[in-house]
């Protein structure tokens, strides 16, 4: 790229990059005030959590992390009760208006909590950040006003299909169209006027989540949506080693059958799991939060460099 053109592109991002820096400062402040310990875990790891549709880039004979989940949970299992981390994560072949193959994730864990406690904490965090950036209790995003006033909307996956989709949830699962219906019909309608927690996923779609008390077909998992953007994903954490092994093995079988790269079993994580107390964990897309706060059309606007510029 012509040096003049590059300087112009980078100069145009100045306001967004300033806001992003203040946003990250506000996030850290929130967690320090609530006595969360900030940690850094390795970005280069021998194996990621085996997920069907998340591909980790190779780094030598190891991988770049797709999230810091496994190491953070090992810390929780060792007795660290409140942890957070802001780290770079990597996912192969993910590039679009909302995706970068290298992005920034905020992940936090809380002992003695479940996914409902994390919904409330999400409300507090976003309101804290909006306040720190002198935003009112509403965000203007893509021509709509998203009110942040508590409590935010909570809707089950089942109800979201009934309300927004052309297929019922069982039909979508049977025909293998869950992701398509979710991405094309449901997600664009979520969080348009106020944030939405989409909760209780079919258990097969929450590989590291605990089954719901009283309904083993559902996983205690939620996703937070603002303005049609998926901002965060949370679980009540699964702590049953045998069950976790079964799910990882199933994901690995899927990957092998689909011709995807196999991941070695994350043994140290699995062995630590029985010691892990009841807890809940969540990952929030830092770049996407910056998009919401700057009314960005694409994720490109809230990072200095995209892969195409390198």
């Amino acid at each position, binding site marked *: 790229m012509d040096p003049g053109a590059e300087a112009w592109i980078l100069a145009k991002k100045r306001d967004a990059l300033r806001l992003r820096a203040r946003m990250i400062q506000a996030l850290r402040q929130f967690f320090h005030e609530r006595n969360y310990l900030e940690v850094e875990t390795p970005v280069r790891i021998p194996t990621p959590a085996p997920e069907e*549709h*998340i591909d980790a880039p190779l780094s030598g004979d190891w991988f770049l992390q797709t999230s810091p989940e496994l190491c953070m949970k090992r810390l929780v299992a060792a007795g660290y009760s409140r942890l957070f981390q802001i780290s770079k994560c990597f996912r192969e*072949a993910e590039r679009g208006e*909302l*995706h970068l193959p290298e992005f920034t994730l905020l992940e936090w864990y809380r002992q003695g909590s479940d996914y409902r406690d994390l919904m409330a904490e999400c409300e507090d965090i976003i309101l804290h950040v909006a306040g720190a950036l002198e935003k009112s209790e509403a965000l203007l995003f893509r021509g709509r006003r998203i009110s942040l006033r508590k409590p935010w909307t909570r809707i089950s996956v089942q109800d979201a299909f009934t309300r927004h989709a052309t297929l019922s949830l069982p039909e979508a699962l049977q025909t293998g169209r869950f*992701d398509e219906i*979710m*991405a*094309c019909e449901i997600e664009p309608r979520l969080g348009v006027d106020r944030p939405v927690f989409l909760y209780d996923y079919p258990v097969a*779609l929450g590989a590291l989540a605990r089954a719901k008390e009283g309904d083993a077909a559902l996983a205690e998992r939620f996703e937070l949506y603002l303005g049609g953007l998926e901002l965060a994903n949370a679980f009540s954490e699964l702590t049953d080693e045998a069950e976790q092994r079964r799910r990882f093995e199933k994901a690995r079988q899927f990957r092998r059958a689909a011709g995807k790269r196999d991941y070695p079993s994350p043994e140290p994580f699995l062995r630590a799991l029985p010691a892990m107390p009841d807890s809940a964990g969540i990952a929030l897309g830092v770049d996407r939060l910056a998009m919401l706060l700057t009314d960005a059309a694409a994720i490109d606007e809230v990072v200095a460099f995209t892969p195409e510029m390198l």
Partner: protein
Amino acid sequence: MYTASDLKKNLRIKLDNEPYIITEFNFVKPGKGQALYRCKLKNMITGSQFERTFRSVDTFENADLQEKKMQYLYPEGEKYCFMDNVSYEQVFLTEEQIGDAKNFLIDNIEASILLFEDRPLGISLPNFVDLVVTEAEPWAKGDSVTGNTKPVTLQTGYRILVPTFIDQGEKIRVDTRTGEYLTRVKA
């Protein structure tokens, strides 16, 4: 052969044996779910458009399009006849396929014809074409303000704004991409 991760705006692919161009593209991936590639496609023969969502496992053939230099011969009914100067093979393009290029088509002009399996799809002209002004109001003496324009008619029937000093019978250079006047061409 393309895979879904190669899809992007303006890529030309073959579906059901017809050439399509991707006019809109969006990568979506619902949380932890599979990657989806939402495309708006335009059939390059019929012009019809539709939306389709592809998955990572989908593969596509390259739409095997050729560009050939051909010479414009004459209009025939509502079609325009072009000839390959090497093989003398002739093809006919419809008014719709010609589009705005019809404003600049003069006898024997050389154009690039886009072909799909020997079927013509479209045309691109040289960026600059010289055309004769066939009708123009005479230049009113005294109107020497630079930047003033007047409409004239060119030999193809195309109406264009030119500086007031251009007279009937003169030749001007036109940018075929914008359809705008560039300069006077001295005979």
